[in-house]
């Protein structure tokens, strides 16, 4: 009789146990989700975790420099693929865009170069012009296609007699932004000192009077309103990089 009862009750009991287990499992899951965020933030703020994450970011700089092929060109697009309207992006909102005065604008040059003479806009506009229709990829994930024109940056570096064996080129901008790129990327044929966007003089929101256009790097590595360029072996960092974005950020 007992055995018979067991046979019938067995599956029922197992079912009940299963349900209890399920219930407990689900509430445990919900609890761990709730505390997950707090735990994650604590983990991220922990000093040794911070150290590890920064070390991994530097390791990724090295891997990307190794992956970077100086002859590999970013894809170019036909004019009908250009994004309209092209999104504004910066560390401030669009109504805070700095307007640089063209008449007393000077581009300062310093560091490991032969010619430290400052450049006026007409002199810059007289440099040989090339154009590109390329995709700008933002660190946030979105992308947009635009047309930029200006002088090849390698050509400009040659004209100022830059030491191209130096490691970095740094930029200081009229909107207090700053940044830097590796020399290999600076010499890439698609890296432009751009004065035009969509065949028009670069408007203030896209970086008047000039923007460094680097289609082999993320958008924030394309400084706008450039006021000073310097060549150096000391790591110059950057506005976003110093807050945690990966420095190389190559595409």
């Amino acid at each position, binding site marked *: 009789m007992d055995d018979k009862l067991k046979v019938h009750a067995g599956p029922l009991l197992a079912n009940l146990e*299963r349900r209890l*287990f*399920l219930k407990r*499992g*689900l509430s445990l*899951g919900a609890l761990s*989700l*709730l505390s*997950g*965020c707090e735990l*994650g*933030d604590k*983990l*991220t*703020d922990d000093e040794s975790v911070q150290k*590890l*994450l*920064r070390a*991994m*970011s530097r390791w*990724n700089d090295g891997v990307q420099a190794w*992956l*970077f*092929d100086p002859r*590999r*060109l*970013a*894809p170019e697009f036909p004019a009908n693929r250009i994004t309209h309207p092209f999104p504004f992006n910066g560390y401030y909102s669009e109504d805070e865009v700095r307007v640089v005065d063209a008449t007393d604008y000077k581009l300062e040059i310093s560091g490991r170069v032969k010619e430290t003479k400052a450049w006026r806009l007409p002199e810059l506009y007289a440099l040989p012009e090339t154009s590109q229709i390329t*995709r700008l*990829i*933002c*660190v*946030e*994930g*979105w*992308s947009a296609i635009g047309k930029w024109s200006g002088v090849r940056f390698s050509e400009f570096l040659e004209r100022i007699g830059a030491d191209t064996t130096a490691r970095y080129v740094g930029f200081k901008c009229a909107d207090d932004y700053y940044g830097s790129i590796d020399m290999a990327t600076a010499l890439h044929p698609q890296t432009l000192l751009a004065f035009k966007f969509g065949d028009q003089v670069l408007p203030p929101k896209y970086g008047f009077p000039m923007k460094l256009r680097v*289609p*082999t790097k993320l958008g924030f590595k394309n400084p706008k309103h450039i006021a000073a360029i310097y060549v150096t072996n000391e790591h110059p960092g950057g506005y*976003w990089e110093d*807050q*945690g*974005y*990966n420095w190389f950020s*190559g*595409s």
Partner: protein
Amino acid sequence: MREVHPLPVRVTHWINVLALLLMLCSGWKIYNAAPLFDFKFPDALTLGGWLAGALQWHFAAMWLLVLNGMIYLAYGIFSGHLKRRMLPISPRAMLGDVLKALRGRLAHDDLSVYNAAQRAAYLGAILLGIGLVLSGLALWKPVQLYWLAALMGDYEGARLLHFFCMAGIVLFVLVHVAMVVLVPKTFLTMITGKLKNG
């Protein structure tokens, strides 16, 4: 006592749990910076504090995910484990087992033999994982790996693929965990590798 899961499978399984958790939670924070669709992931499920922190986690944990995944696949292929456990698999057997599972009639007598629904789910998860890594590489290096991005419909195509592979993996994890809750002894076997009276 008999062995259900060999040691390399158990170790890589739990490392994968950690790596996937880090990748998903940091990835959701990155998604939130520029949502592809009309929704955001709840902040409580994200990792990194803000975009830069999330990116640091994502690009650190990717090494763990990929290296661990490669060790698992190399072991599975060269030991014959994958072939033994995952094959053969037929659509008809799979459908039959899924229907059985839905009616609660799927037998789990021998945990070392995967039924057809399991085989399909695990193989699918492996393929989704490969899809996630490849689309992730295309997003990270759309210029250096332009051919990979081109295969996926350029950068924006890779972005969509990365999202849908993520969604697929999340679906797999939800079903997988629900199944483990329903057949709790499978949880212990993935730790100890052995099963009493198995």
